[in-house]
Protein backbone atom coordinates (compact mmCIF):
# COMPACT_ATOMS: atom_id res chain seq x y z
CA UNK A 1 0.00 0.00 0.00
CA UNK A 2 1.17 3.54 -0.48
CA UNK A 3 0.23 6.98 0.64
CA UNK A 4 -0.67 9.85 -1.60
CA UNK A 5 0.66 13.30 -0.79
CA UNK A 6 -1.76 16.14 -1.36
CA UNK A 7 -0.63 19.59 -2.34
CA UNK A 8 -1.14 22.36 -1.38
CA UNK A 9 -1.79 21.79 2.31
CA UNK A 10 -4.26 24.66 2.36
CA UNK A 11 -6.09 26.67 -0.28
CA UNK A 12 -8.34 29.68 0.07
CA UNK A 13 -10.42 30.97 -2.84
CA UNK A 14 -13.44 33.14 -3.54
CA UNK A 15 -16.81 31.62 -4.30
CA UNK A 16 -17.20 31.06 -8.03
CA UNK A 17 -13.49 30.47 -8.62
CA UNK A 18 -11.98 27.13 -9.54
CA UNK A 19 -9.98 25.11 -7.04
CA UNK A 20 -7.20 22.76 -8.04
CA UNK A 21 -5.44 20.34 -5.75
CA UNK A 22 -2.83 17.74 -6.54
CA UNK A 23 -1.82 14.30 -5.40
CA UNK A 24 1.52 12.60 -5.93
CA UNK A 25 2.43 9.01 -5.25
CA UNK A 26 5.52 6.85 -5.54
CA UNK A 27 4.81 3.48 -7.13
CA UNK A 28 2.53 2.17 -9.84
CA UNK A 29 -1.17 1.98 -9.10
CA UNK A 30 -4.35 0.39 -10.43
CA UNK A 31 -6.57 3.31 -9.54
CA UNK A 32 -6.73 6.47 -7.49
CA UNK A 33 -9.64 7.75 -5.42
CA UNK A 34 -10.53 11.19 -4.09
CA UNK A 35 -12.47 11.78 -0.89
CA UNK A 36 -13.89 14.85 0.86
CA UNK A 37 -14.13 15.41 4.59
CA UNK A 38 -16.30 18.11 6.06
CA UNK A 39 -15.11 19.47 9.37
CA UNK A 40 -15.35 16.89 12.15
CA UNK A 41 -16.99 14.27 9.94
CA UNK A 42 -16.12 11.08 8.13
CA UNK A 43 -14.76 10.97 4.60
CA UNK A 44 -17.06 10.80 1.60
CA UNK A 45 -16.00 9.20 -1.67
CA UNK A 46 -15.99 11.60 -4.62
CA UNK A 47 -14.53 9.85 -7.61
CA UNK A 48 -12.37 6.91 -8.70
CA UNK A 49 -10.09 7.02 -11.73
CA UNK A 50 -8.42 3.92 -13.10
CA UNK A 51 -4.83 3.85 -14.25
CA UNK A 52 -5.88 3.41 -17.89
CA UNK A 53 -7.98 6.59 -17.74
CA UNK A 54 -6.55 10.07 -18.16
CA UNK A 55 -9.53 12.17 -17.18
CA UNK A 56 -12.86 11.74 -15.48
CA UNK A 57 -15.74 14.08 -14.73
CA UNK A 58 -18.46 14.07 -12.13
CA UNK A 59 -20.64 17.15 -11.94
CA UNK A 60 -18.35 20.08 -11.10
CA UNK A 61 -15.43 17.75 -10.42
CA UNK A 62 -12.74 16.94 -12.93
CA UNK A 63 -9.97 14.50 -12.11
CA UNK A 64 -6.89 13.87 -14.20
CA UNK A 65 -4.31 11.17 -13.83
CA UNK A 66 -0.80 11.17 -15.23
CA UNK A 67 0.79 7.81 -14.50
CA UNK A 68 4.08 8.83 -16.08
CA UNK A 69 4.42 11.62 -13.51
CA UNK A 70 2.69 9.62 -10.78
CA UNK A 71 0.32 12.43 -10.07
CA UNK A 72 -3.34 13.31 -10.12
CA UNK A 73 -5.24 16.54 -9.86
CA UNK A 74 -8.74 17.35 -8.68
CA UNK A 75 -10.42 20.42 -10.13
CA UNK A 76 -13.57 21.83 -8.58
CA UNK A 77 -15.18 24.35 -10.90
CA UNK A 78 -17.35 27.28 -9.80
CA UNK A 79 -16.64 26.66 -6.12
CA UNK A 80 -19.32 27.17 -3.50
CA UNK A 81 -19.07 27.79 0.23
CA UNK A 82 -20.35 24.23 0.71
CA UNK A 83 -17.17 22.92 -0.96
CA UNK A 84 -15.19 24.06 2.08
CA UNK A 85 -13.67 20.82 3.33
CA UNK A 86 -10.50 18.74 3.34
CA UNK A 87 -9.74 16.64 0.30
CA UNK A 88 -7.77 13.40 0.33
CA UNK A 89 -6.43 11.12 -2.35
CA UNK A 90 -5.93 7.37 -1.99
CA UNK A 91 -3.77 5.68 -4.63
CA UNK A 92 -4.53 1.95 -4.62
CA UNK A 93 -2.93 -1.16 -5.99
CA UNK A 94 -3.04 -4.82 -5.02
CA UNK A 95 -3.84 -4.39 -1.36
CA UNK A 96 -6.79 -4.21 1.01
CA UNK A 97 -5.44 -1.13 2.70
CA UNK A 98 -6.32 2.43 1.78
CA UNK A 99 -3.72 4.88 3.04
CA UNK A 100 -4.61 8.53 3.25
CA UNK A 101 -2.33 11.53 3.57
CA UNK A 102 -2.84 14.81 5.39
CA UNK A 103 -5.14 16.24 2.75
CA UNK A 104 -5.70 19.67 1.23
CA UNK A 105 -7.81 22.04 3.33
CA UNK A 106 -9.99 24.10 0.99
CA UNK A 107 -11.73 27.22 2.18
CA UNK A 108 -14.22 28.87 -0.14
CA UNK A 109 -15.03 32.43 0.90
CA UNK A 110 -18.52 33.74 0.25
Amino acid at each position, binding site marked *: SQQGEEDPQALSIQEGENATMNCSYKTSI*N*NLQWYRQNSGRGL*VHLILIRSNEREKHSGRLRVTLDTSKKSSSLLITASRAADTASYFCAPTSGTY*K*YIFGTGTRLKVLA
Partner: protein
Amino acid sequence: DVKVTQSSRYLVKRTGEKVFLECVQDMDHENMFWYRQDPGLGLRLIYFSYDVKMKEKGDIPEGYSVSREKKERFSLILESASTNQTSMYLCASRSPGTGWRATEAFFGQGTRLTVV
Protein backbone atom coordinates in the same frame (compact mmCIF):
# COMPACT_ATOMS: atom_id res chain seq x y z
CA ASP B 1 -28.96 4.57 1.86
CA VAL B 2 -25.73 2.86 2.85
CA LYS B 3 -24.59 3.38 6.37
CA VAL B 4 -21.60 3.01 8.62
CA THR B 5 -22.55 3.90 12.16
CA GLN B 6 -20.18 4.57 15.01
CA SER B 7 -21.63 4.17 18.47
CA SER B 8 -20.65 7.60 19.82
CA ARG B 9 -19.84 11.00 18.35
CA TYR B 10 -18.08 12.20 21.49
CA LEU B 11 -16.55 10.20 24.29
CA VAL B 12 -14.61 11.20 27.40
CA LYS B 13 -12.74 8.48 29.28
CA ARG B 14 -10.24 8.36 32.11
CA THR B 15 -6.64 7.24 31.81
CA GLY B 16 -6.34 3.51 32.35
CA GLU B 17 -9.92 2.70 31.39
CA LYS B 18 -10.69 0.01 28.85
CA VAL B 19 -12.53 1.69 25.99
CA PHE B 20 -14.69 0.10 23.31
CA LEU B 21 -15.46 1.91 20.07
CA GLU B 22 -18.14 0.18 18.03
CA CYS B 23 -18.77 0.36 14.32
CA VAL B 24 -21.66 -1.22 12.46
CA GLN B 25 -22.25 -1.31 8.70
CA ASP B 26 -25.37 -2.39 6.87
CA MET B 27 -23.83 -3.06 3.46
CA ASP B 28 -22.66 -6.65 3.97
CA HIS B 29 -19.07 -5.53 3.40
CA GLU B 30 -16.24 -7.93 4.07
CA ASN B 31 -13.58 -5.28 4.68
CA MET B 32 -13.64 -2.93 7.65
CA PHE B 33 -11.07 -0.44 8.90
CA TRP B 34 -10.21 1.71 11.90
CA TYR B 35 -8.26 4.94 11.46
CA ARG B 36 -7.27 7.70 13.79
CA GLN B 37 -6.94 11.26 12.63
CA ASP B 38 -4.77 13.88 14.27
CA PRO B 39 -3.98 17.42 13.13
CA GLY B 40 -0.96 17.49 10.84
CA LEU B 41 -0.74 13.69 10.72
CA GLY B 42 -3.69 12.86 8.51
CA LEU B 43 -5.47 9.53 8.77
CA ARG B 44 -3.43 6.65 10.10
CA LEU B 45 -4.56 3.05 9.81
CA ILE B 46 -4.80 1.22 13.13
CA TYR B 47 -6.28 -2.15 12.15
CA PHE B 48 -8.30 -3.62 9.37
CA SER B 49 -10.34 -6.75 8.94
CA TYR B 50 -10.88 -8.46 5.62
CA ASP B 51 -13.50 -10.87 6.90
CA VAL B 52 -15.17 -12.16 10.05
CA LYS B 53 -12.63 -13.09 12.72
CA MET B 54 -9.80 -11.97 10.41
CA LYS B 55 -7.70 -8.96 11.30
CA GLU B 56 -4.45 -7.39 10.32
CA LYS B 57 -2.38 -4.68 11.92
CA GLY B 58 -2.17 -1.32 10.26
CA ASP B 59 0.53 1.26 10.75
CA ILE B 60 -0.10 2.14 14.41
CA PRO B 61 -1.62 -0.87 16.24
CA GLU B 62 0.20 -0.38 19.54
CA GLY B 63 -2.19 0.10 22.45
CA TYR B 64 -5.18 -1.11 20.43
CA SER B 65 -6.91 -4.37 19.67
CA VAL B 66 -9.93 -5.23 17.55
CA SER B 67 -12.75 -7.71 17.43
CA ARG B 68 -14.81 -8.88 14.45
CA GLU B 69 -17.20 -11.60 15.56
CA LYS B 70 -19.96 -10.66 13.13
CA LYS B 71 -19.66 -9.36 9.61
CA GLU B 72 -21.47 -6.12 10.29
CA ARG B 73 -19.60 -5.11 13.45
CA PHE B 74 -15.98 -4.12 13.98
CA SER B 75 -14.90 -3.03 17.44
CA LEU B 76 -11.80 -1.10 18.38
CA ILE B 77 -10.55 -1.65 21.91
CA LEU B 78 -8.19 0.58 23.82
CA GLU B 79 -6.84 -1.81 26.41
CA SER B 80 -5.73 0.90 28.84
CA ALA B 81 -6.55 4.37 27.58
CA SER B 82 -3.82 6.96 27.67
CA THR B 83 -3.87 10.69 26.98
CA ASN B 84 -1.93 10.22 23.74
CA GLN B 85 -4.89 8.25 22.41
CA THR B 86 -7.03 11.38 22.46
CA SER B 87 -8.02 11.64 18.81
CA MET B 88 -10.74 11.40 16.18
CA TYR B 89 -11.42 7.75 15.33
CA LEU B 90 -12.92 6.85 11.98
CA CYS B 91 -14.38 3.52 10.94
CA ALA B 92 -14.78 2.54 7.28
CA SER B 93 -16.03 -0.40 5.30
CA ARG B 94 -15.96 -1.53 1.69
CA SER B 95 -16.70 -4.53 -0.43
CA PRO B 96 -13.67 -6.66 -1.23
CA GLY B 97 -11.63 -6.00 -4.30
CA THR B 98 -8.06 -5.03 -4.77
CA GLY B 99 -6.11 -3.69 -7.67
CA TRP B 100 -8.42 -3.07 -10.63
CA ARG B 101 -11.42 -4.11 -8.61
CA ALA B 102 -10.78 -1.73 -5.72
CA THR B 103 -14.00 -0.20 -4.46
CA GLU B 104 -14.99 2.95 -2.66
CA ALA B 105 -14.81 3.06 1.12
CA PHE B 106 -17.72 4.25 3.24
CA PHE B 107 -16.92 6.06 6.45
CA GLY B 108 -18.73 6.52 9.71
CA GLN B 109 -19.26 9.98 11.18
CA GLY B 110 -16.28 9.65 13.52
CA THR B 111 -15.85 9.40 17.29
CA ARG B 112 -13.96 12.18 19.00
CA LEU B 113 -12.35 10.52 22.01
CA THR B 114 -10.82 12.53 24.84
CA VAL B 115 -8.80 10.72 27.47
CA VAL B 116 -8.33 12.70 30.67
